[in-house]
């Protein structure tokens, strides 16, 4: 086979693909009227049409991303106060610090809140994530035991300044739960189901306890007070231990 034939054969293949962009792909393109609909031939982040022209008119059109897509983390707050998972101002984070511990490049910085009595409380007053260090691994979202941090689908984050604007503070990180429910429907369904199961388990447990207390002739109110007292003593012991530990650390330099 001569070189000329080689050229012609190769050109023939590319030419056929070019024709396909008009016969298959052209139909997919948005109307010339100017209104750009969501790209067709795409389902759940997976293109379903595989022949012809596959151009997406970014940024007017965007390919939807799959639910598990992860870019940067964000923090959740519950809009309705008094939600079972909400701790403080609706912010779910308890400042437990697990996310900061598991973060491989260590780009999370949390400041735990303190009550008026100076004791630490399960709230975060400051929360920073350095997005220029974050490697988008998703470990923080995976291992947060309180479903307080999730991975965002937003990926257009360029900015004119590359120091301060890349360190996200608490206000920038907070998103309402409804946002999370919209981008992570499956994960949110699991969460709702767990909350329901947990409530139910608690109710049956309480009912059983109350029944047992009544059966034993005890006073449920007094029992509850005793339990409170025990808990208080335990917390005090823990505080003492922590203070001792701190003193030791400081003493050790």
């Amino acid at each position: 086979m001569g070189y000329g034939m080689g050229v012609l054969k190769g050109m023939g293949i590319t030419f056929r693909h070019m024709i396909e962009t008009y016969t298959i792909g052209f139909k997919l393109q948005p109307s010339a009227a100017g209104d750009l609909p969501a790209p067709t031939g795409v389902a759940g982040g997976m293109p379903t049409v595989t022949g012809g022209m596959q151009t997406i008119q970014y940024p007017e059109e965007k390919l939807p991303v799959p639910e598990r897509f992860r870019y940067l983390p964000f923090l959740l707050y519950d809009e309705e106060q008094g939600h079972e998972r909400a701790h403080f101002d609706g912010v779910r984070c308890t400042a437990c610090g697990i996310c900061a511990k598991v973060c491989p490049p260590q780009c999370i910085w949390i400041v735990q809140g303190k009550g008026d009595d100076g004791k630490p409380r399960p709230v975060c007053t400051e929360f920073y994530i350095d997005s220029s260090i974050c490697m988008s691994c998703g470990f923080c979202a995976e291992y947060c035991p309180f479903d307080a941090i999730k991975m965002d689908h937003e990926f257009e984050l360029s900015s004119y300044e590359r120091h301060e604007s890349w360190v996200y503070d608490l206000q920038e990180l907070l998103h309402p739960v409804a946002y999370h429910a919209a981008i992570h429907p499956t994960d949110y369904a699991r969460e709702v189901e767990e909350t329901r199961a947990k409530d139910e388990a608690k109710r049956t447990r309480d009912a059983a306890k109350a029944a047992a207390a009544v059966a034993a002739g005890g006073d449920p109110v007094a029992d509850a007070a005793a339990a409170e007292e025990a808990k208080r003593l335990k917390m005090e012991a823990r505080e003492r231990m922590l203070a001792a530990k701190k003193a030791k650390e400081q003493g050790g330099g």
Partner: protein
Amino acid sequence: MTPIDLLTPPAPPTTTRPAPPSRPVVDEPMVLNIGPHHPSTHGVLRVVVRLDGELVVSADPDVGFLHTGIEKTFEAKTYVKGMTLAPRMGYLSPIHNSLAYVLAVEKLLGVDVPERATVIRVILAELDRIASHLVFVGIHGLDLGASSAVMYTFREREAILDIMELVGGARMFPIYIRPGGLSSDLPPEFEAAVTDILDRLPAAIDGYERLLTNNVFWKDRTVGVAVISAEEALALGTGAHILRATGVAYDLRKCAPYCGYEDYEFDVPVRTEGDAYARYLLRIAEMRESVKIARQALSRLPSGPYVTADRKVAPPPKHELATSMEAVIHHFKLWTEGFRPPAGEAYAAVEAPRGEMGMYVVSDGTAKPWRVHMRSPSFVNLQALETMVLGRQVADLVTAVASLDPVMGEVDR
């Protein structure tokens, strides 16, 4: 006026020019640097070539431009955090790198992996292999001036990367495989997406073959070029397509099966020419075999847990956190400290797209590995470069590098 005589040659000039000063004849090869920033060097590879005219006298690959210190970083991270590093090393075969690391860690821990997780690992590994070979075919074409093949190979590769994104949330670094199993169960769209790409691949591969396999330019530049013999390939420790193109049927999936590869029916394609064309044909054939394996795995995908029930290794499912105090304690302990494999060492190797990808993990009983070392196939294969191009035209060096298919992140780590 006399007419100009154009027929008789002019008389030689009467003045004599001084003879040029005599210079010593330098009989020394020319040194030529190819790379590190050359489009055909697949990243930042510098090859110091010494040339006698057009012929290569020596070719030294100079590596280290992409050194990231990943091996060392492993020592400062817990075992699970190391999962984020393994795929970043070989960015064209992230699943295989993760798999080698995870298999080594699992060996240290002595943990059993559920069947479902193993089968899913096989599916992803084969998709990973196909995606990597697609890059090879496309970029090899690009290096030799056949620039349309890459458009078509990347179309299919994109579909595979979409599947990675679907299961693990990221195209290149899904971090989906974990010690003890997987990070989560498959999403419901998975099977349809994999079936779809597996159905399309055979026809798509035919398409690449129509563009390249019998193309006269392609054959001119690859047949009989960058030849290596079986003895040399074995002595240099090369693997995968380089070794198998010389007639040695060495494939870890057959020789030292892992992840239950012994239960799948597939062939190991072998050729005997040892040249770049044979390597190309092998990779085309391997993609077809991978489609077969992935199909078999998909058809036998069992139901069941996707991660081990060993709470020392894998976290408890989130719904247990709400009800069980024990689960919360495991969870906190696991993620604030990490698990501690018993002191010892483990080596696990997988047949990565470029050859034997081995991970050697040494534990001193703490939560962080004492040492992690990779036997990365790209690094070993690169040593065959000089053997392939010695005494050949310098233009063949491009073919040799392209058909070695090195990933520089894996070479330098």
